[in-house]
């Protein structure tokens, strides 16, 4: 009952005009990001963090969350109408969605995508509310050693699932940890890896690194391809009829559940979640041959999965401070900028923020359901803007944003550097997600380790003698061994795919 009261209080926060406004702004920006290829939610959220720093914490986090789930709604639009996935998580939607559009059923595909997103969003929210309450009670018992074990487990799983090569995932994750140590050591005050440069003393800001790795690198990658062309298609009727609804209801439910469960695991990108859910649908279907030629389940399942997966990702982030995707790592960075430490204590001390944000996600889902369809003509117009004209604006906003973090030109150079690194990482197939997650978690991991060692007077036994910590560490070892084992057997699980 306590949870329900909290949720009601959350709604009273989220329904304030200011919060509604930022929820709307975030939803629209998110949809825009989802529609436009070449700018993912992680990049867009990172770009907006410096601008949002003047807002109240609740408003800023509400807006950033709205961008995240808004992108999942927007991504389906262009996948269905134009066969252009605006966002990695909607690649699968192209398969059947675009086929439906070619058959003149674009409207139905869009309608079922919106309905499925909405149902899954609702399901995800209920899951988020109840699972969080359980996890918070558990996490309240965590001390520094348990927290260290948990972060280690999260990081290990993220590495194991990040890409085709375990070694490359490990390299990027360790590089992230190394980058996190740059600057003044918070405990002893000794500068680390600064090489005498005063600009390096404050370290590399994670937001700046994300803008470089995701936004700038993406523009570089797009510079070497020709501009895409826009096709015309008729939208037709939007509301699915009864038999179409009945046909896809199972898919929507399965997609929601699969999305939610996979969304809880660190390192599994929404793109992979949609793929898994599509694959599952194909397997349980009585008519698997219809998939790929306009099966409505093929749109309903992945669209539901990516929405419940975004809600699920909030569970480990809010209750444990553990981000599962690059976008959520950015959100964690934003929470810390606003002086919020995600974890069980946040649920006690910052009730209005946490529950306000959770409630706003539901409001945002309703807004998107209403907004999505009428705005489609606008998005299509926007897609007609040639990329060469769009790229300088995206780059300029990246520059402004990186500069805005600390009003420092040095940060822009860091961003450009990571733009080049990100471009090369794509070329050489290094996953970027472990780098971001470990960069964001680096400080926390180090602090947890040091506090634990202070507790135990420097003895490492503390990690073995505390049962919960031991379980986490054993799970981390198991995850790595399993992943090593499957690689040695030459089996590549379909999950090994990066964002």
């Amino acid at each position: 009952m306590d949870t329900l009261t909290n949720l009601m209080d959350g709604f009273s926060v989220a329904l304030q005009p200011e919060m509604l406004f930022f929820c709307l702004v975030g939803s629209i920006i998110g949809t825009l990001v989802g529609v436009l290829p070449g700018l993912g939610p992680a990049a867009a959220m990172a770009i907006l963090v410096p601008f949002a720093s003047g807002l109240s914490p609740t408003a800023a986090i509400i807006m950033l969350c709205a961008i995240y789930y808004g992108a999942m709604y927007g991504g389906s639009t262009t996948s269905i109408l134009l066969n252009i996935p605006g966002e990695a998580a909607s690649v699968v939607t192209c398969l059947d969605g675009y086929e439906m559009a070619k058959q003149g059923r674009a409207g139905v595909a869009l309608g079922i995508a919106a309905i499925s997103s909405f149902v899954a969003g609702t399901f995800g929210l209920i899951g988020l509310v109840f699972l969080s309450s359980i996890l918070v009670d558990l996490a309240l018992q965590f001390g520094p050693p348990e927290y260290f074990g948990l972060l280690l487990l999260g990081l290990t799983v993220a590495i194991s699932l990040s890409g085709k090569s375990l070694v490359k995932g490990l390299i990027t994750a360790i590089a992230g940890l190394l980058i996190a140590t740059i600057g003044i050591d918070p405990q002893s005050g000794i500068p680390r890896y600064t090489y005498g440069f005063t600009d390096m003393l404050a370290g590399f800001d994670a937001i700046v690194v994300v803008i470089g790795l995701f936004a700038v690198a993406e523009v570089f990658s797009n510079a070497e391809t020709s501009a895409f062309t826009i096709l015309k298609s008729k939208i037709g009727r939007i509301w699915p009829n009864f038999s179409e609804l009945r046909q896809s209801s199972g898919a929507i439910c399965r997609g929601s559940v699969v999305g939610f469960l996979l969304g809880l695991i660190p390192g599994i990108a929404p793109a992979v979640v949609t793929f898994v859910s599509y694959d599952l649908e194909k397997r349980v279907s009585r008519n698997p041959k219809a998939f790929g030629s306009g099966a409505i389940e093929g749109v309903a399942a992945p669209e539901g999965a990516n929405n419940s997966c975004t809600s699920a990702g909030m569970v480990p982030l809010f209750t444990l401070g553990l981000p599962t995707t690059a976008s959520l790592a950015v959100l964690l960075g934003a929470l810390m900028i606003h002086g919020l430490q995600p974890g069980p204590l946040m649920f006690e001390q910052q009730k209005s923020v946490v529950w306000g944000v959770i409630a706003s996600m539901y409001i945002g889902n309703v807004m998107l359901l209403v907004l999505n369809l009428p705005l489609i003509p606008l998005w299509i117009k926007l897609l007609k803007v040639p990329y060469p004209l769009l790229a300088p604006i995206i780059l300029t906003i990246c520059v402004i944003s990186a500069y805005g973090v600390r009003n420092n030109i040095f940060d822009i150079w860091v961003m450009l550097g990571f733009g080049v690194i990100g471009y090369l990482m794509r070329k050489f197939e290094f996953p970027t997600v472990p780098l971001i997650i470990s960069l964001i978690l680096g400080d926390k991991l180090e602090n947890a380790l040091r506090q634990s060692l202070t507790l135990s007077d420097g003895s490492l036994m503390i990690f073995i003698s505390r049962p919960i910590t031991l379980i986490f560490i054993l799970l981390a070892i198991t995850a790595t061994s399993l992943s090593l084992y499957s690689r040695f057997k030459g089996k590549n699980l379909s999950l090994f795919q990066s964002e």
Partner: protein
Amino acid sequence: MIEAILLLIAGLTLLADVYTGRNDVEINWPKGIFRFRLFRLALALVGYVAILKPLGFLTATFLFMIFTISAWQNYRKLVIVGYALVFSIGLHLIFNKLLGMSLPPGLWMD
């Protein structure tokens, strides 16, 4: 320390993988016009950041947009200049005035 050792081990493993052909990544480097475009884009960005402080946001952004667009696609000169003018002033208004940021003022002390 531990990080460095792990990184070294991981690097060596990767090297071994590449050597034995277990980690073949086919890299499509951009060719011809695309390589040239990428190169000019990188150059434009470096130049932009270098002149941002001395010339100020407005001038630097205007020049950057002209250079980037003309590097990317052939448009008429007037179109490019007009576009760059509108958007550099637009972004200046949005971020400096509306959002109250303090971008480098440079030549135009407002």
